[in-house]
């Protein structure tokens, strides 16, 4: 990470702070920068802010993010992964990476509307992640790939319940990452369910 990247991380954190608690925030970023944006958000939340939360992998196996954090010496003590894509990743190698064991694998990628129930009931019953009251954020890595597995109605249902979940927990931030140019309809729907949109490309230009 160079100085520009670090400044962007700080700018992102500044924006998240300004948006006010509790809140659901959309990070609008170019598709090619989604993985990096997720990493920057996590670096800011875990390292700069000392927050604790879930990282929901819908786009690529959680091991990649875990590996990135490990490679950049960012502690993963306060992150729990909910991985819905590894079961479709097709790689033997992913299991060989030396990463933390803080993960729940879910295989109902095609039933996105059930995810919020997973957060509430089945999710994380280990360590100090006992309930949603114990955490500060839920970050969804990229909403767009959900369209590969679910129709728009199911996604709408998921977003409604996700917004309600966040609104009913004062301690929680809901963070969603997507390129708003990926899909007009999905973009419109998401923007109805978030309070704040952060334009990461603009923040980068300002950094």
């Amino acid at each position, binding site marked *: 990470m*160079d100085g520009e990247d670090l400044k962007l991380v700080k700018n992102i954190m500044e924006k998240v702070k300004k948006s006010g608690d509790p809140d659901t925030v959309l990070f609008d970023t170019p*598709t*090619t*920068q*989604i*993985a*990096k944006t997720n*990493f920057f958000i996590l670096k800011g939340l875990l390292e700069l802010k000392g927050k604790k939360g879930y990282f929901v992998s819908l*786009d*690529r*196996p959680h091991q*990649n993010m875990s*590996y*990135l954090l*490990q*490679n*950049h010496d960012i502690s993963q003590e306060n992150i729990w992964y909910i991985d819905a894509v590894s079961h479709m*990743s*097709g*790689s*033997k*190698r*992913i299991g060989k*990476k030396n990463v933390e064991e803080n993960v729940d694998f879910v295989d109902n990628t095609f039933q996105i509307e059930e995810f919020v129930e997973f957060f509430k009931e089945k999710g994380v019953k280990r360590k100090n992640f006992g309930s949603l009251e114990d955490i500060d954020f839920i970050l969804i890595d990229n909403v*767009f*790939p959900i*369209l*590969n597995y679910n129709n728009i109605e199911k996604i709408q249902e998921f977003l409604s319940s996700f917004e309600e979940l966040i609104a009913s927990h004062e301690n929680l931030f809901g963070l969603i990452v997507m*390129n708003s140019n*990926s*899909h007009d309809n999905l973009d419109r729907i998401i923007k109805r369910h978030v309070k704040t949109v952060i334009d990461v490309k603009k923040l*980068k230009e300002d950094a």
Partner: protein
Amino acid sequence: MAELERVSTGIKGLDDMVDGGFPFPSVSLVAGGAGTGKTTFGLSFLTEGARQGEKGLFFTTLSEPTQWMLRYTNQFDFIDKDFFGDEIKYQDVGLLVQNEGYEELLDFIDDKIAEVMPQRIVIDPITVVGPFFKEEYRSFLFELINLLKNWQAVSVLTGEVSPGMAYPEEVTYAVDSVILLSMLEEEGSRRKYLEVLKMRGTDHTTGKQPISITTENGIVVLKSRF
């Protein structure tokens, strides 16, 4: 329907042949004989990314020092030399290929990708690895291509094609796209062509398209045939 997102190939005329560019993320093979423009293709692809604010990572398997590669790229007007070192990182893995097993090479590539976090990756040429890994070559390719697919990047592997061989088939089965570069003797001169053999999820132009390679523009697909 979720449409595939695409990134520009950086080759003038090629984006028009492939619905706007390479699908993001994806892994492509650019194959051809000696002098057909494989390395130039890879450099154009990374340079285009750097122009868009994307990071690029260039792995060479040839044990070529950075200054050797830069010596040749300096001849190209279309490549901004300032990109090298920051936006485009150059990494020689030749010694690893020669002296280590394929797991060590994969670990190194994985670590380097995690360090740089590139949006574009080139491995030039991948086929050099085959004789070193012998019967493990196919396993290596399978794991490498899966590794690349699971990162959020567009990767281009280049492959050497021997005379009489159409393309390196052990690589083509696993990648998302195959682009062939060729040089044919016609009317006493050698002419260069580009052909999109396969690109998943893409309505692409078929057949050999004539190209020119110049120091000013790199590879340009000539429009006479499409």
